[in-house]
């Protein structure tokens, strides 16, 4: 009986396996689900969902299936606009928007209206998400004002008391459809490994022990060595702000993966291109700058240099003195990047823009020339190639 449900989960983009389905059957056979649909929901969830990011999707599919509304699968795939729902942190309301909410009769009314709009959108089937999106300046943009109070999954607020658990969809903002998880990135980064023995000697060095014992006339002389650790050193320079805002997520993932993967990781931020200084803390970037020369002097040339940036800017910002958009730079960026590249022979540039678009931007071409073509797309395949280059 669960096979259609299982198929729906798969169609809905969940990676549930047959093993897990069998476990669910086994559990039901042992009477765990009882005769209560809530229990069954909990059991199915603990068995079939293995990532909190998928809980919301599971809830939606569960609701859809057990209402017998298989058609609504269609809008499971079609996300409610992300920027509208998820950027709660960025949303701040102007007074007139707040007034608008009040004029709509507060949040209850607002949400009813929203539900109506969503339903209408269902019947339209095309461009639906955009339709709601244009409501951004309308009271619906106000969602961020009180994100806790809203349950999209709820079918009308009149039967609130009878709301099903899965209809609450409390895990809403955890859903991620980004395929590139940090695990993949870490596995790619693992290519860049250089083992060295350092630290406390806690492993038996068998060869040396045999050798020393033999020389010692048979008296045991135990030799220890430190365990091997990844000793690769990485200097990460990240472009931040401006056109990079579109790529914040992937850069964050890349950054957090790199942080746990490399013991010796130093990072600096820059805006658009490298000039005479970079910074470590974006909140205090005017006050606490580090001179690029100091960086080059402080970190030895065995560091691997990785730039992350879209390299999309006006070519003047690279080639001319005073070309920076933020300050007057005495020397062109090209000179500074050359200096860094001379210090660090192992260097790559990772570009979050898709490779197909590189040719259309003159500055990308320029940067590629400066980097001797060592520019790779910020994808798993690109990282893989890049790490090979760094090795």
């Amino acid at each position, binding site marked *: 009986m669960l096979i259609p449900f299982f198929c729906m989960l798969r169609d809905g983009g969940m990676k549930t396996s047959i093993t897990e389905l069998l476990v669910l059957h086994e559990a039901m056979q042992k009477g765990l689900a009882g005769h209560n649909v809530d229990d069954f929901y909990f059991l199915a969830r*603990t*068995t079939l*969902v293995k990532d909190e990011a998928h809980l919301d999707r599971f809830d939606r599919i569960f609701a859809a299936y057990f209402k017998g509304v298989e058609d609504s699968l269609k809008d499971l795939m079609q996300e409610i606009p992300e920027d509208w729902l998820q950027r709660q942190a960025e949303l701040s309301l102007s007074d007139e928007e707040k007034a608008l909410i009040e004029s709509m009769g507060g949040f209850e009314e607002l949400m009813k209206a929203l539900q109506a709009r969503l339903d209408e959108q269902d019947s339209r089937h095309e461009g639906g998400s955009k339709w709601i999106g244009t409501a951004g300046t309308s009271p619906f943009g106000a969602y961020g004002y009180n994100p806790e109070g809203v349950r999209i999954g709820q079918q009308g607020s009149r039967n609130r008391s009878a709301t099903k658990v899965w209809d609450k969809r409390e895990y809403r903002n955890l859903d991620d459809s980004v395929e590139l998880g940090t*695990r993949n990135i870490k596995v790619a980064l693992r290519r860049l490994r250089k083992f060295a023995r350092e630290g406390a000697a806690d492993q038996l060095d068998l060869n040396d022990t045999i050798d020393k014992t033999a020389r010692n006339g048979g008296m045991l002389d135990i030799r220890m060595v430190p365990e091997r650790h990844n000793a690769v050193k990485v200097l990460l320079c990240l472009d931040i702000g401006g056109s990079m805002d579109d790529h914040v997520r992937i850069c964050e993932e890349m950054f957090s993966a790199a942080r746990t993967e490399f013991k010796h990781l130093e990072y600096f931020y820059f805006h658009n291109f490298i000039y005479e200084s970079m910074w470590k803390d974006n909140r205090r970037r005017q006050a606490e700058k580090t001179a690029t020369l100091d960086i080059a002097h402080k970190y030895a040339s065995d560091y691997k240099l990785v730039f992350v940036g879209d390299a999309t800017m006006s070519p003047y910002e690279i080639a001319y003195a005073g070309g920076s958009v933020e300050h007057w730079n005495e020397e062109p960026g090209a000179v500074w990047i050359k200096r860094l590249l001379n210090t660090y022979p192992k260097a790559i540039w990772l570009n979050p823009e898709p490779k197909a678009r590189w040719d259309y931007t003159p500055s990308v071409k320029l940067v590629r020339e400066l980097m001797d073509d060592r520019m790779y797309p910020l994808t798993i395949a690109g990282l893989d190639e890049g790490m090979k280059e760094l090795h």
Partner: protein
Amino acid sequence: MANERFTGTSSYIATDDLTMAVNAAVTLERPILIKGEPGTGKTQLAIEVAKSLGKPLFEWHIKSTTKAQQGLYEYDAVARLRDSQLGDDKVHDIANYILPGKVWEAFEAETQPVLLIDEIDKADIEFPNDLLQELDRMEFFVYETKKLVSARNRPIIVITSNNEKELPDAFLRRCFFHYIKFPDQDTMAKIVDVHFPGLKKALLSEALNAFYKVRDVRGLKKKPSTSELLDWIKLLLAEDIPPEALRSENARSAIPPLYGALLKNEQDVHLFEQLVFLDRRNNPS
């Protein structure tokens, strides 16, 4: 078959979905993976499960240097070499130098034990993969003695993760999964009640209000969690702070007393103070 059911204990409030996940794991004898914000009682769960079902508990705390092998057993070759020099008789039996790890100990237990593998995400990224077979079949092979160790009673395995690293799919498929979501105000009141029975209603509700207000501050690096709330209430009681001091109406922009127990990060404290300051300036009352 185990017919006892876990329903939470006198000192641990378990929600319905959590009890279901634990009972499924107990009944089907499969590991359960618990994730959630730090301080929501993940580790505590294993302790409470063991306590309420009356089973022995084995705790294996994972560090960044922990290897999967260490949970099974370690062969102390150095000690054996030394003993051979001293002519100790022990040296003829290699089994004397095999030191069982936590997993082995749990496998050998007389009654069905609870095995806690705490913070599995701290270890190397391959660590969970190295334990697949052991957790699946509940047995492993000791190469030095050519002996197969299999569990006398399949232990109830509780695994916790803080999400520092993602876990491999193959590993996840073998586990039940539960994400402890942050408790809502009602559940939180129950939790506090379990820890501080007889706490004055007024203080509790004021404390919870203040707590959730702090949690709602945007951009905090580490939001205060259940364990911080409990610590804070302990302090409030110790200092005998009256509930009025926490009330937001008469001091709407005041920093809650002893907030150091809630915010553990210097930047968060800074941010919080700034917000309060701004609030005060915008709403002079």
